């Protein structure tokens, strides 16, 4: 394991400490050291926006904390949901009197812990609404969309939800708009190499050299097929096809495109993928209004990439344009 770590059991602690030191102009740590809070939060009279999830996806989730985006983030162990208590503490930190929306991803642990946190908050009189992201196309067939995992589309949901809340919308409005944001997203991941949880010490799955895993999840969850590694062009075409076949959009629809590396894929390869991704999307008659390419939602040192396509309407476009002040700029 060629890694910069101290104690394999303290990877998350050390990460959060370094993060909060580096970005003390934007974030602070709550009393609960597993909750990162925007320096601005709570904003009186604004709906609080919260997320949380397992660590190892940096810059997600903590990197999106900041003005006009997330007010507070609950931090879990590597690839493990935060505790109900951390979600609850994040909700309290974000609460500015108008309730809190929790925008999170569809994983068993997160579902349970958010549910428990919501109950705890209700007892304290804090109104909580939730939106659960399920943009990962390959994680369940269309007729079971409610089972799909949340992946990089979450970032766009946070951006939209954070901007809507910043505009003074009500809890119900923020929830509905964030829900629309994620409903409009579809994502796909392709894995070329595994990752290792430091406390485990060896890769937790294998991808044979010369193979790739299509539809891989953000924790290495197996995809829909393993096949021979193809050219970037062919991979990009497959990715666009899987995403857009699931997301039948009328020609002329404007879309936002997010291509994220999974942690150990050099940026230049994301551009190589994007070259074809953009052409393929255009071939389907869609109009690309916004593009982000980079390591936005990773899986430790996994080799691979994800594509997220979000269909836009005027409201979403406007909200995506609202500038947020986070450590990672969208």
């Amino acid at each position: 394991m060629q890694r910069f770590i101290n104690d394999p059991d303290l990877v998350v602690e050390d990460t959060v400490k370094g993060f909060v030191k580096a970005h003390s102009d934007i974030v602070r740590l709550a009393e609960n050291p597993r909750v990162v809070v925007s320096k601005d939060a709570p904003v009186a009279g604004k709906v609080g926006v919260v997320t949380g999830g397992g660590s190892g996806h940096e810059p997600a989730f903590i990197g999106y904390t900041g003005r006009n985006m997330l007010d507070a983030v609950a931090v879990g162990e590597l690839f493990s949901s935060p505790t109900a208590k951390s979600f609850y503490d994040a909700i309290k930190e974000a609460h500015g009197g108008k309730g809190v929306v929790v925008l999170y991803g569809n994983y068993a642990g997160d579902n349970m812990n958010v549910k428990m946190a919501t109950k705890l908050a209700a007892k304290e009189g804090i109104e909580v609404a939730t939106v659960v992201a399920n943009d990962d196309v390959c994680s369940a067939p269309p007729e079971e969309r409610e089972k799909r995992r949340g992946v990089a589309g979450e970032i766009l949901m946070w951006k939209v939800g954070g901007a809507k809340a910043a505009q003074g919308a009500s809890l119900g409005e923020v929830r509905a708009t964030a829900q629309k944001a994620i409903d409009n997203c579809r994502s796909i991941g392709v894995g070329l190499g595994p990752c290792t949880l430091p406390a485990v010490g060896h890769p937790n799955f294998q991808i044979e050299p010369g193979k790739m895993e299509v539809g891989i999840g953000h924790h290495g969850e197996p995809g829909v097929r393993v096949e021979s590694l193809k050219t970037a062009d062919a991979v990009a075409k497959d990715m666009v096809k899987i995403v857009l076949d699931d997301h039948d959009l009328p020609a002329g629809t404007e879309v936002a495109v997010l291509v994220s590396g999974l942690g150990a894929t050099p940026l230049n390869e994301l551009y190589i993928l994007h070259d074809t991704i953009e052409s393929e999307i255009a071939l389907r008659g869609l109009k690309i209004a916004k593009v982000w390419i980079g390591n936005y939602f990773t899986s430790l040192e996994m080799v691979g990439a994800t594509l997220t396509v979000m269909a836009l309407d005027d409201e979403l476009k406007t909200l995506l344009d609202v500038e947020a002040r986070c450590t990672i700029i969208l």
Partner: protein
Amino acid sequence: MQTFDNASAGSIVRSMAERIVENRAYLSEIDGKIGDGDHGVNMAKGFGMAAERLKGKDASLAQSLDTLGTVLMTEIGGSMGPLYGVMFTEFAETIEGADKIDAAAYSKMLHAGLAGIQSIGSAKVGDKTLLDTLVPAVEAFDKATADGRPFDKALEALVAAAETGRDSTINLVAKIGRASRLGERSLGVLDAGATSCAIILKELAVGAQTRLVDAVG
């Protein structure tokens, strides 16, 4: 009637933690096959922390289970934090205040834990989760006592059923959790939670068995 003493059985939880910590790599390896490979790490961290807190304290079984449940719930997160957290705190609540634990109390305890798990997760038997261990184990225990068999034999039946249940997950297609999208590819592999659950139930059962005394029924 066979019973065991609540006050002096706290060390069962510590041995349970030892077993889980010993199986850290094994449980992660199983989870890695069709999940995300962290089950052993999560479990060992939580159970290890609880054992640390219990060290040197002369806690009863009920108190020890409560400490374990609380640590899991507040410190561990993941799926296991809430699921096992609820299970152990329900276990603890049920036997709290009982001096002696008999088969009826043991059964009540198991049912409360199971209900707790079912109230927050939405898995069913056959979904390839820890319920495939827990549910048949509880049923076997109840059946044995209903058949008039003594507490120690019922515990034996429970352990056997737990292990059979655990092994049954090899032939199940995952229906819930990270592995659920694998379909056929989840066949042939144990479920991690089912495996840790069998360890837990066995350690609890063996701990009770060795402490059983015959009270005048």
